[in-house]
């Protein structure tokens, strides 16, 4: 998987001038972009295409994203400007569909629609309250374990070893300091 990824900096070596979206776009003004897209929708061929898509119950948001991707891929406008013009274009297609008496679906979320999340579902079923109650009961039952006494793992009565034992562990008095010998 990792070997199939591009080498860092490969984009700086490749010739990307053939891609339309890598060159400066033709349209950079908002109103000009909306006018261009409206003229595209009003174009006889494109208009037939849009109406045909509406007839097969395609959502307006899908039609809009298709038209915008077409505009971006041909280098007409940058992708951020395309996103800004999505609203006006969708509104224009909506008005056209109304004018022609076509049924349409905008394809966006209804504001009144309630999004069902796991937390909301738990609240509706009363699971959250039960879980909280059970948690409280468990906390009450927990008791501190008794410290082991005696044996190897038991806590010693005196934590500090006597001086003799410490000296013995450290090597004690058996070690004699070596005195440097005079070299002749």
């Amino acid at each position, binding site marked *: 998987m990792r070997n199939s990824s591009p080498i860092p900096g490969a984009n700086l070596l490749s010739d990307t001038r053939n891609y339309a979206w890598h060159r400066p776009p033709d349209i950079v003004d*908002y*109103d000009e972009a909306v006018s261009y897209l409206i003229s595209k929708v009003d174009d006889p061929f494109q208009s037939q295409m849009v109406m045909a898509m509406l007839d097969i119950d395609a959502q307006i948001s899908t039609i809009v*994203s298709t038209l915008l991707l077409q505009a971006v891929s041909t280098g007409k406008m940058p992708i951020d400007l395309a996103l800004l013009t999505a609203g006006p274009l969708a509104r224009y297609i909506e008005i056209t569909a109304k004018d022609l008496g076509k049924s349409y679906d*905008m394809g966006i979320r209804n504001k009144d629609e309630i999004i069902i999340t796991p937390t909301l579902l738990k609240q509706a079923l009363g699971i959250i309250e039960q879980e909280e109650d059970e948690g409280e009961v468990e906390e009450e039952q927990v008791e501190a374990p008794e410290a082991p006494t005696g044996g190897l793992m038991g806590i010693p009565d005196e934590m500090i070893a006597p001086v003799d034992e410490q000296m013995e562990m450290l090597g004690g008095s058996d070690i004699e300091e070596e005195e440097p010998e005079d070299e002749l």
Partner: protein
Amino acid sequence: MQFQDAVKLSIEKFLDGKMPNKLAELADDGVLYHTPDYFDALEEELLGEPTKKDKEKKDAK
């Protein structure tokens, strides 16, 4: 976020009457032509029916 989701979000905001604050500053004369109000007026002119905003105004009165 995928392009389709971004398009949907953009449409939602526009239908709510919201536009980026700094967008008008980019226009040559500082005024935008294709606003939500423009499309409401266009709808009223073409279809001859009051828009949602007009209905809300009437209900408020």
